[in-house]
């Protein structure tokens, strides 16, 4: 799975149009990225990538790139 595919999955999870996000997109500027969609992100990382995303780690994410880096770790 490419980094672009992962970004597309994030866009789908946030109910955003494909292509609306890129690696540099700042999470605090995305209104759809709220406390509830953060939970969906935890579920997505577990279901799709078998990765455990903790509260502390998610608080450290500033950009979409941070999320993709975590998934690819």
């Amino acid at each position: 799975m490419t980094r672009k595919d992962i970004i597309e999955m994030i866009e789908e999870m946030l109910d955003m149009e494909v292509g609306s996000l890129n690696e540099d997109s700042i999470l605090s500027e995305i209104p759809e990225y709220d406390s509830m969609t953060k939970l969906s992100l935890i579920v997505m990382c577990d279901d799709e990538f078998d990765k455990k995303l903790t509260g502390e780690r998610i608080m450290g994410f500033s950009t979409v790139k941070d999320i993709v880096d975590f998934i690819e770790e």
Partner: protein
Amino acid sequence: MAFFKFNNIRVAGVACAVPRNVVETETYKPVFGDEEVDKFIAMTGVKASHRTLEHQTCSDLGYRAARELLSHKGIKPKEIGALLFSSHSPDYRRPSTAFVLQHRLGIPEEAVCYDISLGCSSLVVGMQTMASIMNTSDMRYGLLFVGDTAGKSVNPHDRSSAMLFGEAGAVMLMEKTDAPADQIKALIRSDGSGFKYMIIPGGGYRNLHASEDVVMCDDGNERSLMNSFIQGTSVFTFTIFDVPRLIKDFWSQSGTTAQDYDCFAFHQANLYILKQIAKKTKIPFDCLPITLDRYGNTSGASAIVSLCDVYGGKDENKVIKVMACGFGIGISLGATSFEINTADILPIMEDDEIYTEGLITDPNQLYEKK
């Protein structure tokens, strides 16, 4: 592993009471906005909850439930050998609320009475404690009280919690029997690294005179140190990873599978969490009662609220196999399995009685001549 097995002990009855006052989640729209409230309802499933009056406590509700249950079973208070009150909402900072209930119910001095300080895991840990006490003595009956009034500590402008919690008081009667096949099993885990995830930081002896100033927190909600705090994402990660693992370990230790149970009386944390847990453990969702839609998250009482909602007052007489699971503040989590006759499950009651003798608003009430 903290896996426990008790023979000759059974669950002889459960009952619960909720306050009459219903708060519909929609009524928070003027405070939080339509979109926020709709999203909250969609994710958590809480459409309404019951909230206590100012001086009404979950021991009042538990008292009503216990009185009705003992009357239903034809059991006299003098037959009760132990009374445990497992909650984070005691009537007083001290003494234990168990003593107030003992006094109100007329339970004799020979009884063992004390509080256990837990929230959402109250029922499963309380059952293990009660079974342990009964196992090593000759007492016939034990009464376990659970429930919280979490709503009283939430800041009314905290959108993460103000609409989530409901209030209830529940009771479980446990009985020593002659039948070794009457078994209760329990698995308990603890994770103190998460002690800050669900907390009221002030008012305890670490910071007794904590400031009551309301502060805008980084998550966009207002709270003071005397309000309850929940780190939503950290709690969520724990529930979807550690709770399914506990459930599977419980099945492995007890030699059972999901198919061995008629009912999964699980702590009503929120609908999204319950769906994730069911998905990961392959528990059939139609065997997992949901009461949080009408009663909110009722903390330690929620498993009993679910049993009473589904089976209470249905005039049936069948023995069902139940798995209960509680998880939350501490972090404390656990699972138990037991059988219960549906005739011993009372329907949910509504009550607004307050034990006025226990309400002290003037210091000199403690010095009144009798």
